[in-house]
């Protein structure tokens, strides 16, 4: 599918689109304020990354804000969802507030959050946490409560305790969906951080981009926007990698690798165990 020929074709299409865009802009058919020429964007990238070199700091700050917001909001969502899944009345009395928080456009809270937490990093982290709470909460809760009833029956018939059912059945069963929630959340946290930066801020990619576009340096503004896409992809793949590591049973090769490793550990372990038990602690019955 992704052989060299297909990559070449993609590249050809890309170059073709860029060239027509450039030509149309040079002819004046495209408003260069709305869509700057590709060459201008290229110049913007060079300027931001190699000449000024200020973008790295802004990049790191926004990354930190989004990630911290995700950790707080996602952690809270996870904790409340687990509590709600384990206890019916907890869920009954907590979920209305979660729903209210969900239907409120979280970004509407931006000025309030900034008034609360000031102009520094903490307000961006707080807004990120607010907007990324719900996807984790709802995905975890649904996943934990939607356990396969046959498997549940089997666990019960084998006399599994409530804790065992939770740890060995509900948690592994729910992990794929929980991670899907994380993936939504982390990009939402980025949106929250960036929007808070737009509103009031002294550093971060959002601030940088707003400055550039209000100075009508649109090439650099688009370059900053592309860096934001990069940031989004980076955060997304961070979760994707974790997903791949932890939920290993969803993909064939990973599943086999882990299975082989566990098997090796298993065949190595009982032998040593047998040795120690037979030599050190002979049982009376044997």
């Amino acid at each position: 599918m992704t052989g060299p020929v297909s990559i070449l074709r993609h590249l050809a299409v890309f170059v073709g689109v860029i060239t027509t865009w450039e030509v149309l802009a040079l002819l004046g058919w495209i408003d260069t304020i709305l869509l700057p020429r590709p060459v201008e964007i290229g110049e913007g990238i060079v300027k931001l990354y190699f000449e000024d070199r200020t973008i790295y700091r802004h990049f790191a700050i926004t990354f930190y804000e989004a990630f911290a917001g995700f950790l707080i909001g996602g952690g809270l969502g996870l904790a409340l969802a687990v509590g709600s899944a384990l206890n019916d009345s907890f869920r009954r009395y907590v979920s209305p507030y979660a729903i209210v928080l969900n239907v409120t456009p979280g970004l509407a809270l931006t000025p309030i959050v900034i008034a609360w937490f000031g102009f520094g990093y903490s307000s961006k982290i707080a807004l990120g946490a607010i907007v990324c709470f719900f996807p984790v909460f709802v995905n975890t809760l649904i996943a934990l409560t939607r356990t396969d009833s046959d498997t549940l029956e089997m666990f019960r018939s084998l006399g599994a305790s409530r804790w065992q059912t939770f740890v060995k059945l509900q948690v592994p069963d729910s992990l794929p969906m929980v991670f899907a929630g994380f993936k939504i959340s982390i990009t939402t946290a980025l949106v929250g951080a960036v929007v808070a930066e737009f509103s009031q801020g002294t550093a971060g990619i959002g601030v940088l981009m707003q400055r550039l576009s209000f100075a009508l340096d649109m090439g650099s503004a688009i370059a900053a926007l592309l860096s934001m896409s990069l940031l989004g992809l980076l955060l997304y793949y961070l979760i994707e990698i974790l997903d791949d590591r932890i939920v290993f049973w969803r993909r064939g090769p990973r599943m086999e690798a882990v299975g082989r490793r566990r098997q090796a550990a298993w065949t190595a372990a009982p032998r040593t165990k047998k040795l120690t038990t037979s030599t050190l602690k002979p049982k009376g019955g044997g």
Partner: protein
Amino acid sequence: MSEADERALRGAVGPTSRRIMFNHLAILMSLLTAWEVGVRTGTLDALFFPLPTDILAGFWRLYVVQGNVWSHLGLTMMEVSIGFLAGSALGIGLAVVVGLVEPLRRYMKPYVIITEATPRIAIGPVIIAAFGFGWTSKVAIVMLVCFFAPFVNTLNGMVNVDDDELDMMRSMRASKLQIFRKLMIPDAMPEIMGGLRLAMASALGGALVAEFIAANAGMGVLINQYTGVLNMASAFVCVLTLTAIGFFILRFMEAVDRWLVFWGDRARTEAVSRRRASAWARREEGRT
């Protein structure tokens, strides 16, 4: 949020009984009372937690005495509805075109992934620089925010048509138009609705953010002004208004979903098929 989500949230407890409603109210009232007492005694900062009674008074002041919310609210809702309609129509339309033309679809994929990863609202400053500070730039931003979810979902729904069903349609010599109308569209309908719901949910946020960045009227401006002078009670009134609107929008989209995708719900399916059967029978009767 779908019905299943809601069931999960509420728990498998069946319909809420009167006693549970009472408990809910009691919890809410005691929370609010604790809040009020806490602020009045000075344990809670009034800047963080404006008095609940102040918020209530704020509703009266903003909506009745001053009546200044209405024009801002109207403007924001206008931006949201125009932007949503135009953006989602564009998204669905473009997705249908792309979905029907195979090579276009193949070469679109990388671009769709990149635009997916970009926080859409982030384009705000660029659009405002291009369209100015008036309401047109807000409509443009809402359009952009509402474009992607319907576009991606429609494309997905159309591409993932069941091969067996497609074979059957072909073997019965269905025309391209028939395949499109009777197979692809109904098949993609639940996903399209999902996209529209996502778009609608983000439309309000998009308009507000656009107003935060630069505007002279709208709910975002109003919230910004009130928090700017630290009149938190009035800011809370505005946010709670938006909460109510968000709730209304959610319910509205759910109703539309149930109406359009009637086969997703068992009872609705039966009702519709019964109605169709009786209409059919009546027509047959008329013919004989």
